[in-house]
């Protein structure tokens, strides 16, 4: 018994000495080490730090947006793979976006867990109803490119919003690691795909105004296949 008391006193002493640095985890572990009951032995060693709480809900929504968008791109791609459209280039382009959104969703879930959060599949971004929910994915070529461009911009906007929330130095949500992650994994690639799609629409606009839009679309699709 004496040894036990001595040990616990030592533990508490160390705990108070360290308290300033590792306030919760160390104390709770130290307490759990000397506790006799399991309920008192709970440890509180969270992976959360920085400003993650400020952006967690938006990150969760961003995952669900990625999944929904991956389905939308899959449908758009499917439309171009039917025997009548038969545009392998458009199919490939759109399928690429679908795969990318799906893989990003998984990476985002891993990222949320890395920062001590947990994915919530019920956190969904509210889409503008008329704009997003009654869309038919069977469009013509230039409409499809326009829609893809709008989606990419919308997703870039979401990423920017998360970035801005984590960049205010004067509140509790400041989190340079989140900023770094958004910049590296999203910002650069989004700028590229937005530029590519905008370029494609410029090209198609010119080609479709010419004398033979069928042939132009055929050649444009061939180009997309490469």
């Amino acid at each position: 018994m004496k040894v036990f008391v001595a040990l616990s006193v030592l533990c508490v002493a160390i705990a108070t000495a360290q308290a300033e640095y590792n306030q919760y985890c160390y104390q709770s572990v130290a307490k759990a080490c000397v506790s006799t009951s399991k309920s008192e032995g709970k440890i509180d060693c969270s992976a959360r730090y920085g400003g993650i709480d400020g952006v967690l809900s938006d990150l969760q929504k961003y995952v669900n947006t990625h999944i929904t968008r991956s389905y939308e791109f899959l449908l758009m791609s499917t439309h171009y793979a039917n025997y009548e459209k038969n545009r392998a280039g458009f199919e490939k382009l759109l399928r690429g976006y679908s795969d990318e959104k799906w893989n990003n969703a998984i990476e985002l879930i891993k990222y949320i867990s890395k920062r001590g959060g947990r994915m919530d599949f019920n956190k969904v971004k509210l889409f503008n109803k008329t704009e997003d929910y009654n869309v038919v994915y069977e469009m013509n070529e230039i409409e499809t490119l326009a829609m893809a461009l709008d989606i990419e911009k919308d997703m870039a906007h979401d990423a920017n919003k998360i970035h801005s929330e984590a960049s205010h130095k004067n509140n509790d949500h400041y989190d340079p690691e989140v900023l770094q992650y958004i910049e590296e994994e999203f910002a650069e690639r989004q700028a590229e795909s937005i530029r590519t799609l905008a370029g494609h629409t410029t090209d198609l606009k010119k080609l479709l105004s010419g004398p033979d839009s069928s042939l132009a679309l055929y050649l444009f699709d061939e180009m997309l296949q490469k």
Partner: protein
Amino acid sequence: MKSMLAIALFACAIAASSAAMQCNQTPLDMPMQWKDMQESCVDKVKQQIGEELKASMQYLAMGAHFSDYQINRPGFAKMFFESASEERDHAIKLISYLLMRGELRQDVSNLIKKKYTPAATTWASGMEALKDALALEASVTKKIRDVVKVCEDDERFNDYHLVDYLTGEFLEEQYKGQREIAGRISTLGKMMSKHSALGEFLYDKKLLS
């Protein structure tokens, strides 16, 4: 003056009409006898596409659960994330098959929903999740068998090719996958019989390698 205005307007109209883009092509008249899939069978395959996506969301939720630092089983998470992508690939394979047979020329927009919500999002242990995964696979297998039934029992048309594809590719993968999960449950169970915490910890590391 009036005629000048009229000419100017006419010129504008021509300019506008020639500047307008021609975005749509008129569909061709073509023979349709080659399209021989029956509607009931097509509907059943379409339904199965949704089932595969549902399963993929369930696996995604499992991956998310085991990634949580309070669970911290990266091996289990890796395995479930891979399964999620596999299920999605199955859905895409079925879509490709329908396209190959001339289906999905229209009404593509309703083929899949915008969102499939996972039925469960937490599991008490790795073992619990593996058991759920095995049950999920068994239910998918049963649903594929149902598609086979509908597509071969049709009096007007026995869809030999689809049925061959489903049994040869899909059921093959289902049975192999189920055997793999069953083996894992069994190994993990034996490892945990005396050392449950250590058993799960070690098995997770094994899944990671």
